[in-house]
């Protein structure tokens, strides 16, 4: 039940469902969101030493590389930290679990936001590539508040308490309402997924997100409104065919100017 709800929440969260799918139409990054939780879950099982698990990690990482360029950097950092701290836990004991959760929560937040901050301060101001603007500007990184980053880290930390350190459910108290109704909550039951959610948690409290979704309710793509494959375009004779094409583009199509 918890896994099903967390999976649906994972799909509903604004960065995946809103920004990647609806706003940016980043088909590669969308595929990366399939491999990232899988890779982190497999990394957790890697210490079993099974050949199948290790092979599956290789396949998942290869598919991640084939799906997107940026996400493997972000994901490999999180996966490495998780794996290293998992290995070191026998030496550090329970301290290690706290370190792992904290680093697991902080590092993706840092990676995700630092890229935006670097862009805002260096890339954008110096007009490095002239008029070209990376898509993540829509996330309004300039409005990053320390409070939002702190909320993201705290939420991730709470969600990432690994199951093995929580043999007793978090609501084990006698007077707990959930306990009385036989409902048990294991906070770490979706920890690999939670690591992938960190950047999205921040967007939950980002007022620009709603604006993006409302503003970008655009038309559907038709190959005839793509100028770069103009050699394949059949000049539409009926205005009905151009019903969904914008004004300027419509004029270009009608007059054959590409």
């Amino acid at each position, binding site marked *: 039940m918890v*896994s*099903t709800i*967390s*999976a*649906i929440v*994972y*799909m*509903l969260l604004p960065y*995946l*469902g809103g920004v990647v*799918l*609806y*706003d*940016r*139409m*980043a*088909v*590669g990054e*969308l*595929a990366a*969101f*399939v*491999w*990232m*939780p*899988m890779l982190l*879950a497999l990394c957790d099982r890697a210490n079993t030493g099974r050949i199948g698990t290790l092979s599956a990690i290789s396949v998942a990482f290869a*598919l991640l*590389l*084939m*799906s*997107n*360029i940026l996400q493997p950097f972000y994901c490999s950092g999180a996966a490495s930290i998780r794996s290293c701290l998992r290995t070191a836990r026998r030496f550090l004991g329970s301290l290690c679990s706290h370190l792992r959760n904290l680093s697991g929560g902080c590092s993706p937040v840092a990676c995700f936001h630092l890229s935006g901050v670097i862009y805002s301060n260096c890339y954008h101001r110096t007009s490095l590539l002239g008029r070209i603007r990376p*898509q993540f500007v829509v996330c309004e990184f300039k409005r990053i508040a320390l409070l939002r980053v702190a909320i993201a880290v705290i939420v991730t930390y709470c969600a990432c308490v690994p199951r093995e350190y929580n043999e007793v459910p978090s609501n084990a108290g006698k007077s707990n309402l959930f306990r009385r109704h036989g409902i048990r909550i294991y906070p770490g039951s*979706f920890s690999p*997924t939670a690591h*992938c959610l960190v950047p999205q948690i921040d967007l939950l409290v980002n007022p620009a997100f709603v604006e993006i979704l409302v503003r*970008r*309710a*655009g*038309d*559907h*793509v*038709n*190959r*005839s*409104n*793509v100028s*770069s*494959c*103009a*050699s*394949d375009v*059949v000049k539409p004779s009926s205005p009905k*065919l151009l019903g969904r094409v914008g004004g300027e583009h419509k004029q270009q199509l009608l007059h054959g100017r*590409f």
Partner: protein
Amino acid sequence: MEKRDSEIIRGRMTTRVPAVLLIIAAAAVLCLRFLIAGVPANGDALDHVTYQYNFSRQFWSGDHYPRWLAEANKGYGSPIFLVQYPFPHFVTALLRPILSFAPIDARESRELGVYCFLMFAGAGLAAYS
């Protein structure tokens, strides 16, 4: 022992199958717009439709990893797949014989819409597993 194993498997099936169906249904609802009319013209959609049109055409002509899109940019060509990730376009190209959409202008857009649904459902299932 075998009876117990079969009971365990049956127990897992009864819990997992409804969950998987629920996740796929949620993905279908969220991607309904993509499944019906193709990808919306936001972000990089126009570029991806162009790439997909050329990629599928070369793929099904025998060029199984088209790094150079010969017909793109009004026939001048494009080297985009020397640097661009190919996975989404491979999957979408492979969907063509299964989906069999009519060869109209919106075909690639609709194929990419189905791809988005599959990946979205896959993301949910990966998070579930």
